[in-house]
């Protein structure tokens, strides 16, 4: 596959980079990345990955656009209120970059469908707003041995970590354990969030995917990056794989089959 004149022009500012080049650009164009959640995190992640020329972006969300989303979910416009987030996102991403094929999954991600939906992805990005989904993505990706990144945001702060199962890096459960009950006090609707925080973290998630696909730089593995945009703190907290971890430890369980993910098991109706 050779790059067209139009592609050379479109991606010229990243092809110029030593770390990308034509070889890297073709890897991006041949890659498939799956994205769970088209809210604030997913908006910035999807936008930049489509722009960078990722070949296939599978976007998964069941939700519809609401007025109160628009201050932070930058893929959705006022005219999109009441539209499906997937449709609204695909509309923007297709017009941004026709090189990027958008695959729409208009559904909840659940223990019943997660493996089938994610199995042919090169990298997976978790951008949902709830802990049970984050745990489900963690467990599914570990079971499928597909690298992934998870971010979360609240108020003015947020955090991100990447997991590479093949390299046995620390997983989300190594750090956060067996919490699967959703804690409503932790949701954005209750606590609030400033739009720029998921904007920054969504970019960081996109950057993790790009670095993995191109095999360049360092991933945020075995550490959590914590940012506080009110106090301008950018910290890294070292974490370690727990060999007793129920997801990735020495005696792991197939959690996707067995675990209780709060309301997730029932919410695909």
């Amino acid at each position, binding site marked *: 596959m050779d*790059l067209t004149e139009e592609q*050379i*022009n479109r991606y*010229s*500012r990243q*092809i*110029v980079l*030593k770390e990308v*080049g*034509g*070889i890297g650009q073709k890897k991006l164009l041949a890659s498939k990345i799956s994205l769970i959640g088209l809210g604030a995190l997913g908006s910035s992640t999807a936008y930049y990955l489509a722009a960078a020329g990722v070949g296939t972006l599978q976007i998964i969300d069941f939700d519809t656009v609401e007025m109160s989303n628009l201050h932070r979910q930058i893929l959705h416009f006022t005219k999109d209120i009441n539209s499906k987030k997937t449709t609204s996102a695909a509309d923007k991403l297709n017009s941004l970059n026709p090189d990027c094929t958008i695959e729409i999954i208009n559904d909840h991600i659940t223990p019943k469908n997660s493996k089938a939906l994610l199995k042919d992805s090169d990298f997976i990005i978790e951008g949902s707003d709830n802990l049970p989904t984050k745990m489900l993505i963690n467990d599914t990706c570990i079971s499928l041995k597909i690298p992934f990144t998870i971010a979360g945001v609240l108020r003015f702060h947020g955090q991100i970590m990447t997991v590479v199962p093949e390299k046995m890096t620390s997983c989300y459960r190594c750090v956060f354990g067996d919490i699967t009950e959703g804690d409503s006090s932790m949701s954005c609707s209750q606590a609030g969030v400033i739009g720029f925080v998921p904007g920054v973290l969504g970019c960081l998630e996109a950057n993790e995917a790009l670095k993995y696909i191109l095999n360049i730089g360092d991933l945020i593995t075995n550490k959590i990056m914590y940012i506080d945009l009110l106090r301008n703190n950018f910290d890294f907290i070292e974490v370690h794989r727990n060999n007793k971890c129920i997801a990735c430890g020495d005696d792991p369980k197939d959690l996707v089959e067995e675990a209780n993910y709060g309301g997730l098991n029932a919410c695909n109706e």
Partner: protein
Amino acid sequence: MLAMNSRDKSNYKNSTQLDIRGKMCPLTFVYTKLTLEVLTKGDILEVYLDFPAALKNIPESCKRQNLAELLEIKEIHSDKPEWIMILRKI
């Protein structure tokens, strides 16, 4: 100063030619880089160009990215600003 006809191929055997006359920086380097990427170490690339800043920019970027070394730059015409830049892939 060596004046040569553009059809007069240089003394480099088995060289690859790239014509980027009409292109400006940074696309001059982008096209050069894309061509160098598919060559093997030691191969010669002859780049036909007419954008003066590229005479400096292409060799500098090739050196910084460890892509190629500059062997020489020749004028194609004595009366027109067109050059052949000879690079060796490293």
